[in-house]
């Protein structure tokens, strides 16, 4: 039973990591840039939601606020691409990495300036309490996180399979040059990918804030999520989610069965092992090009 307990709480954490990792991979696949501010996007998404919902701010209905927060974060992602990142086209990778790290700082301090630096709690109907069943104590938030992540994954899957924009995103990420030849407005599609990454980060942020308290350093789980994305295979969307789940599950087990302190190292130790033995990641989509 202890096993189930650790597994479920690990999975719930892993879902949040997975969603942030998904944001990394979305942007990486579409634009070949790594957005190191993705974790801070998540944190900002959570604070935007908090600003809409909590009584001391706007005090809106939670379910009404969800689409608004998603829209705000989506618009922010698109505008960030339009105003900043599109002008970096053709620049050195390092420049883009540094730029996104700097963006992370900016987001963190702007958020701090608006909502303060103290830990706060989101008034979320998902954080209702615990249920006990079969000797396992589960917080409702954990279950909600898992369910929402499953739904989110299925929606994204449908979006990529069924819609024209989703197909165009896949095309632009697999072969950018050919996407241009097909008449796909690649830059606009990349903007749409940033918007999508912003929305996914917002969902992750809402889930994160529903599970516990929130402060401006919450974005640092982006580092863990980045490790998760690499473990899953950078460039594979299902890989990112799986990587997130693996990292999430490893942590509580390491905390329980290994000496103190090792649980913080465990995800990165796994990262190193994966890089040594399967450098493309566990679920990589690698195809060699035929001539």
């Amino acid at each position: 039973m202890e096993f189930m307990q650790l597994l479920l709480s690990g999975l719930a954490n892993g879902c949040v990591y997975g969603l942030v990792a998904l944001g990394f991979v979305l942007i990486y696949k579409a634009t070949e840039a790594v957005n190191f501010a993705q974790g801070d996007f998540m944190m900002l998404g959570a604070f935007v939601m908090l600003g809409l919902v909590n009584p001391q701010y706007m005090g809106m209905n939670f379910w009404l606020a969800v689409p608004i927060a998603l829209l705000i974060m989506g618009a922010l992602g698109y505008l960030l691409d339009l105003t900043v990142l599109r002008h970096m086209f053709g620049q050195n990778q390092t420049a883009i990495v540094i730029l996104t790290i700097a963006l992370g700082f900016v987001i963190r301090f702007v958020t701090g300036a608006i909502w303060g630096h103290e830990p706060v709690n989101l008034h979320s109907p998902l954080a209702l309490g615990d249920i006990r069943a079969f000797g396992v104590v589960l917080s409702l938030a954990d279950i909600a996180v898992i369910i929402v992540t499953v739904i989110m994954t299925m929606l994204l899957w449908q979006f990529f399979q069924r819609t024209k924009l989703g197909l165009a995103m896949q095309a632009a990420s697999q072969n950018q040059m050919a996407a241009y030849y097909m008449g796909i407005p690649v830059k606009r599609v990349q903007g749409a990918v940033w918007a999508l990454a912003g929305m996914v980060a917002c969902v992750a942020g809402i889930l994160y804030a529903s599970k516990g308290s929130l402060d401006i350093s919450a974005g640092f789980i982006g580092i863990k999520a980045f490790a998760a994305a690499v473990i899953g295979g950078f460039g594979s969307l299902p890989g990112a989610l799986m990587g997130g789940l693996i990292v999430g599950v490893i942590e509580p087990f390491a905390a329980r069965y290994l000496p103190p302190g090792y649980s913080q190292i465990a995800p990165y130790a796994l990262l190193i092992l994966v890089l040594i033995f399967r450098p493309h990641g566990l679920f990589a989509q690698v195809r060699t090009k035929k001539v």
Partner: protein
Amino acid sequence: MSVLLEVRNLETFYGAIMAIRGVSLEVRKGQVVTVLGANGAGKTTLLKTISGIMDPEKGKIVFDGEEIQGKEPHHIVRRGIVQVPEGREVFPVLTVEENLALGAYTRSDKAEVARDRDLVFTYFPILAERRQQEAGTLSGGQQQMLAIGRGLMLRPKIMLLDEPSLGLSPLLTQEIFTILRRLNKDVGMTMMLVEQNAAVALDLADHGYVMELGRIVMSDTAEKLAASEDIQSFYLGHANEGARGERRWKKRKTWR
């Protein structure tokens, strides 16, 4: 026949390198025009400039009575110019059907698109068999067929074909060119064909240009080009035999 595509004094740079040094040519409706030339002659750059991937420094491109030089690629595709790129460039992790659907990205008439897809399948039956297969797992020849079929899905006014014979066996090359000929005869598809394989290209084309170091050095009907001595010795690989039955020196090209 009216002129569909006209290129006038085009100049394009790759950084500091002048890849196209004042090219002028024209393609008439229903014609197949080929541009021959060795590696680095600027043929691919010419096609990329026409389809908007690269911007020209000087010159004009007039398509269907409209100047299109320097426009964004998706504007140019919408006007009916499609490029079938060198090296296929299919979307490797998408299925054959999805690749074809992307060819029709700029179109919204679903019924017509479906009919065009069936048309592509009649030209390339192998694609119909493999419609659910990922394009990256197709053979080189099948990928080339997919690239051409994907181009047809736009229902273009002109197809720009960049080395469709690249990396294919002589037999497959023949097959591809037979289909291109049928397309030209059946639906009157206008084509601009860039090739290194001068024999098959001149066989298909109505008119030919020869490019060298960014310039057009010869322009004539395909038959006359195929018969010319320069083309025979430098592009078709016919050895000229001297009086003693052996080649003793390299011939100079007449345009130098």
